């Protein structure tokens, strides 16, 4: 595990085929022969047109979904979905995945509780995390008493408190308004800079992908999604996501990646119009 060069997360030749839900027609191949690696401490974003199977890929990486073929390795060890989920990964969902019947602090410490950490210790850590995500003093509120942005911070603390080696994020900020979103992106970068986890970040927003990542992977339109482009983002860190968008280097990268993406987006759009 400690040897350098072993990727934190490696998806090799992944294919996911789903049986048609209505029984008629053939199976739907969401992802076909997709290969993707995330190095230790690397922040990788995956962008692609809507409905192209980005979330499917992430669920495979999380061990929540078993691929039809292909293998997933976590720090060099194969991940078998039947044995359970990817224990070294934390997953932040697009939709709210907080427990509505638990107060903020109880949501944050859920992961510690599942691991059997004594409550007093868990609460102490939980309070510290609430402070780190700017929710100090809101621990006794229930999720429905919080704004969308606050809920995202809570989910972030909930995911990070168990210090996963890999962070999987599925369009976590897509439901937020633009201002809150940029704040959250900056906070994510600040938290990430502290201990440099490996991150696999799914988004449909190219701006967000470039601003956050070390590397941007472009997926083809579905069905049979696979990576079709891999771009290194060598913008300096630390970054401020709202300022970095103004730099010429960002604009160049954006133009380059958009060039690769545009055709796929149009393809997906056409396919949806027909369907």
């Amino acid at each position, binding site marked *: 595990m400690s040897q350098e060069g072993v990727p934190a997360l490696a998806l090799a030749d992944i294919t996911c085929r789903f049986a048609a839900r209505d029984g008629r027609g053939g199976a739907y191949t969401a992802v076909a022969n997709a290969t993707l690696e995330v190095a230790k401490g690397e922040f990788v974003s995956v962008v692609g047109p809507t409905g192209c199977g980005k979330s499917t890929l992430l*669920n495979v990486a*999380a061990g*929540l979904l078993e691929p039809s073929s292909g293998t997933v390795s976590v720090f060099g060890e194969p991940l078998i979905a039947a044995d*359970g*989920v*990817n*224990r070294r*990964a*934390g*997953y932040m*969902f697009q*939709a*709210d*995945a907080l*427990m*509505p*019947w*638990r*107060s903020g602090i109880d949501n944050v410490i*859920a*992961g510690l*509780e*599942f*691991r059997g950490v004594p409550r007093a210790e868990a609460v102490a850590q939980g309070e510290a995390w609430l402070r780190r995500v700017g929710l100090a003093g809101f621990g006794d509120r*229930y999720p*429905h*008493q919080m704004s969308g942005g606050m809920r995202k911070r809570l989910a972030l603390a*909930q*995911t990070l408190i*168990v210090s996963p080696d890999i962070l999987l994020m599925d369009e976590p900020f897509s439901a937020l308004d633009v201002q809150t979103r940029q704040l959250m992106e900056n906070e994510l970068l600040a938290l990430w800079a502290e201990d440099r986890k490996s991150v696999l970040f799914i988004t449909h927003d190219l701006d967000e992908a470039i601003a956050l990542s070390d590397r941007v992977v472009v997926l083809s339109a579905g069905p049979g999604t696979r990576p079709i482009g891999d771009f290194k983002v060598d913008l300096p860190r630390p970054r401020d996501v709202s300022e970095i968008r103004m730099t010429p280097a960002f604009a160049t990268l954006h133009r380059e990646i958009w060039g690769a993406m545009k055709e796929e987006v149009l393809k997906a759009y056409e396919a949806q119009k027909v369907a």
Partner: protein
Amino acid sequence: MKLRTLQFGVLALLIAAWYLLTAPGIIPAFYFDQDNRAAFFFGEPQKVFWVVVEWFVSGDIFIHLAVTLLETALGFSIGALSGLAIGLWLALSPTASAVMDPYIKGFNSMPRVVLAPIFAVWFGLGIWSKVALGVTLVFFVVFFNVYQGVREVSPNLIASARMLGASRRQLLRSIYLPAAMSWVFASLHNAVGLAFVGAVVGEYLGSARGVGYLILQAEGTFDINTVFAGILVLTAFALALDTAVGAFERRLMTWQPRAGETEKI
């Protein structure tokens, strides 16, 4: 406060109308041939009132009320707990659910009150035949709510808990059970009412104690005032039970959003 006044106004109006239409000699008989007939069929409010007062002053009612409430409480708790347990089990085990499905549907469609005579044979005329009837009524309400509730837990929530390291047992305790509980509470008002119905109907069909028994006795002697007194006492206690459930629910379900809720400063 104005609302309360109006609510009591409606009550006063009803009682006044009842009194005027039944008291012999106040208005001429317009339907019956004699003016004391209305009182015979519909009772008289002041007499009903005195029967109730007499019951509570002499203490005769307490043993009957205690029996009825005990039957209600037992029927409710046994029915709710078994509904919760079996609802959780069937919702989490697709095979068992598929096998049991026609039987569950069958038992639910059966008019369960017809079971009361059989229960009287099986469990005797004591409280247990009434509890059994209450259980069959309560069980299905809670069962279907739990079953539905567990199946509608957001897959995201389950995936999230699994990623946070929850084992199967922890999933049950931290996700399924709380999710089901909110549905149980939604059905609680209904369930308490049905447990009450089970108790009273059971008593009515054969018993030696209970408010249903009191009503049955009075009916046997055409004592309409006592029948109405029994109905009034039952209604008052059903209302009290419902209020208690509401208070309990509000305490336990603080996490649920309520429409138009604002922060108290």
